[in-house]
C-alpha cells in the first residue's frame, strides 16, 4: 500500500463576484453572484514511503489546495485520499499527529516567546512523551545547531534561523510525512544550503516522506528525483527530473570561453543564445548533431580557452511546459 494515495480528487471553490462601486457593494449584500473555480480537477498520484517529491506549478495552480486536502484542512468534493490508511479530512486529529507542515512564509512558533517555549508547548499539543521529546529535540538541535537560539524570542530570529526552528518544530512529533511549502523563500545562500542539506538528510537517513512545494528550481534540482507539475488543477507531468527534461526539450547548452573577445561562432547546428564578455552561450540538439562531433568541429575552427556542455536550466523546462499548457 502506498504511503500517500490521492485518487481523482476534485475540489471546486465558489468565489463571490463583486461588482465595482457602491451600488455593486449594495447589490452584493442582497444577491451574491458566484463564479465556480476548479482548484483540483481529478488529481491522482501515489507516494511510496521515503519518497521526496517536488510539487511545482504557477501560483493558483492548485498546489496549496492539494496540501490542504492532504493535511485535513479542506474536504474535497470527490475522490479518495489516504495517508497511512487514514482519510485526512475524516480523521483530522490522528492525521495531524502523523504529518508535519512547514510554511516558509508563516511561522508556527509563538512570536513573543523564546524558541524553547514554543517547542515545549508543541510537546503538549502533540502529546509527545517527555523522553521522546527530549531525544527528538536534542537530535534536531544538533543537526541544525539550534541550541544557541533556544532563549531567543522568535521575533528576534533572522529568517534563516527562524526557518531552522520551524523545521524542527514540525518534526518534534516524528511525523512520517513532511509537507514543505517554499521552505527556502527569502533565505540567503548559506541558509538555503543548510535547509536543503537538512531536508535531504531527513529524507535519506530517517525515511521521512517529503512533499516539497517551491518556486525555487534549485531546491528541486538539489533535492528531488521525482517532480510533479500541476497547472489548472491537473497534474501535467509526473516523472523524474531527467525524464521531464527529455520530454520537454532535447536541447543542450554549449558554453564556450573564447580566447579572443571579438570572435563570433557560426555553425549550422547551433543557435546563439547570449554572450557576456568572451563567454558565449549556444544551444544545440544532440539528435541532429552528436555532441562529440560538434565540439571537435568548433575547437578545430576557433581559438577556445574552455568549453562545457550543460542541460538547460530547469526554469526553462518548466516555463516551456507551462507554455505548452497555456499556463500564462
Amino acid at each position: 500500500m502506498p504511503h500517500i494515495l490521492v485518487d481523482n480528487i476534485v475540489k471546486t471553490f465558489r468565489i463571490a463576484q463583486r461588482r465595482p462601486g457602491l451600488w455593486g457593494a449594495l447589490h452584493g449584500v442582497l444577491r451574491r453572484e458566484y463564479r465556480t473555480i476548479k482548484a483540483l480537477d481529478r488529481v491522482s498520484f501515489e507516494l511510496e514511503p521515503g519518497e521526496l517529491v517536488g510539487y511545482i506549478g504557477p501560483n493558483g495552480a492548485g498546489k496549496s489546495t492539494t496540501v490542504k486536502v492532504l493535511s485535513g484542512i479542506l474536504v474535497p468534493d470527490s475522490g479518495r485520499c489516504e495517508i497511512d490508511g487514514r482519510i485526512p479530512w475524516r480523521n483530522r486529529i490522528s492525521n495531524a499527529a502523523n504529518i508535519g507542515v512547514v510554511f516558509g512564509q508563516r511561522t508556527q512558533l509563538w512570536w513573543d516567546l523564546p524558541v524553547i517555549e514554543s517547542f515545549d508547548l508543541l510537546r503538549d499539543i502533540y502529546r509527545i512523551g517527555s523522553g521522546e521529546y527530549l531525544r527528538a529535540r536534542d537530535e534536531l538541535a544538533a543537526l541544525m545547531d539550534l541550541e544557541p537560539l533556544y532563549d531567543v524570542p522568535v521575533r528576534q530570529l533572522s529568517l534563516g534561523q527562524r526557518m531552522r526552528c520551524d523545521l524542527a518544530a514540525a518534526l518534534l512529533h516524528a511525523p512520517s510525512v513532511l509537507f514543505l511549502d517554499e521552505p527556502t523563500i527569502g533565505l540567503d545562500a548559506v541558509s538555503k544550503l543548510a535547509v536543503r542539506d537538512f531536508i535531504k538528510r531527513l529524507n535519506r537517513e530517517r525515511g521521512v516522506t517529503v512533499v516539497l512545494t517551491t518556486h525555487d528550481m534549485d531546491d528541486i534540482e538539489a533535492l528531488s528525483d521525482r517532480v510533479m507539475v500541476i497547472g489548472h488543477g491537473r497534474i501535467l507531468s509526473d516523472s523524474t527530473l531527467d525524464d521531464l527534461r527529455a520530454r520537454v526539450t532535447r536541447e543542450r547548452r554549449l558554453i564556450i570561453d573564447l580566447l579572443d573577445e571579438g570572435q563570433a561562432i557560426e555553425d549550422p547546428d547551433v543557435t546563439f543564445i547570449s554572450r557576456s564578455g568572451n563567454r558565449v552561450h549556444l544551444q544545440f540538439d544532440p539528435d541532429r548533431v552528436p555532441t562529440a562531433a560538434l565540439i571537435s568541429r568548433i575547437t578545430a575552427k576557433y581559438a577556445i580557452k574552455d568549453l562545457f556542455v550543460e542541460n538547460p536550466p530547469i526554469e526553462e523546462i518548466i516555463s516551456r511546459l507551462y507554455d505548452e499548457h497555456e499556463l500564462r
Partner: protein
Amino acid sequence: MANPLALYSHYVSISLRSQMQYRVSFLLGTLGQLFSTGVEFIGILALFDRFGSLNQWTLAEVAFFYGIVNVAFAVTDMLSRGFDHVGQLVRSGEFDRMLLRPRSTVLQLIGQEFTLRRLGRFGQGAGVLLWATLYLDIAWSPSVAALIVITVCCGACFFLGLFINIGTVSFWTTETLELMNVLTYGGIEASKYPLAIYHTWFRRFFTMVIPMGCVTYFPVVAILGRSDPLGTSLAFQYAAPLFGLLYFILSLFIWRLGLRHYRSTGS
C-alpha cells in the same frame, strides 16, 4: 500526558508570561477596566439616587444582578478573546494552522489568549457583589450558596457560548459582526438589570431564544428570596442556569457546523 486541561494550563502560563513582558500595558489595561466598569456602576448609583428604586427593585438587589453578571462575564472575557478573532485568523491563515494540530479548535482558541487584564472587570464585579451580599438580607443555606456558584459557572458557560457564536458567524461573513455585538454586549448590559422591568417581547427573547435571563434573572430571584413578579416557580429558578449550559453545548454543535462549512469552502 498532556490532557486538555494540562495543555490549557500550559497555554495560560505562556499567555501570562507574554503579557508580563508588557507590564505597564497590563497594569494600565487592568486599571482601565476597573475604572470603566466602576464608572458604569456609578451610573447605576446615580440612577437610584434620583429615583430611589426601580419597579420595586432596590439598589442592593440591582447591584447583586450587576455583580453576578460582571463576575461571570469577566471569567468568559478572560477565556474567549480567541473567538473574537476568528475572522482575522481565517484571513491570515492562522486558523489553518490550528486545523493542522491534533487538538480541538475550540481548545486552541480558548488557549490562544488568557486576557489577564479582565481581572479589572472581575474585581469590580466581585466587589459590587460582595457589597450587595453584605447589604442584603440573604437567607443563607447550602442550596443558596450552591446556586450562586452554579449561576456564575453556568453564566460563564453561557457567555462563552455567545462568543463561540460570534466566532462561528465569521466563517460565513466578516461584515455582520456588529449585529452580533448588539446581542452579546447589548444583552449583557440589559441583564445587569432585573428582567422583570423589560417589555414582554424583550423578556421572551432573552429567555427563550437567548437564555440570558436563565443564568442571571431567575436564579438571582431565588437567591434573593423574592417572589418573582413574572410568576415563575422556585424549582424553575433553581433549574434555570442549566439552560445556560445547554446553550453552550448547542453553540459547540453550531461551531462544528461552521467548521464543516469552512473546511468545505476554504473561505
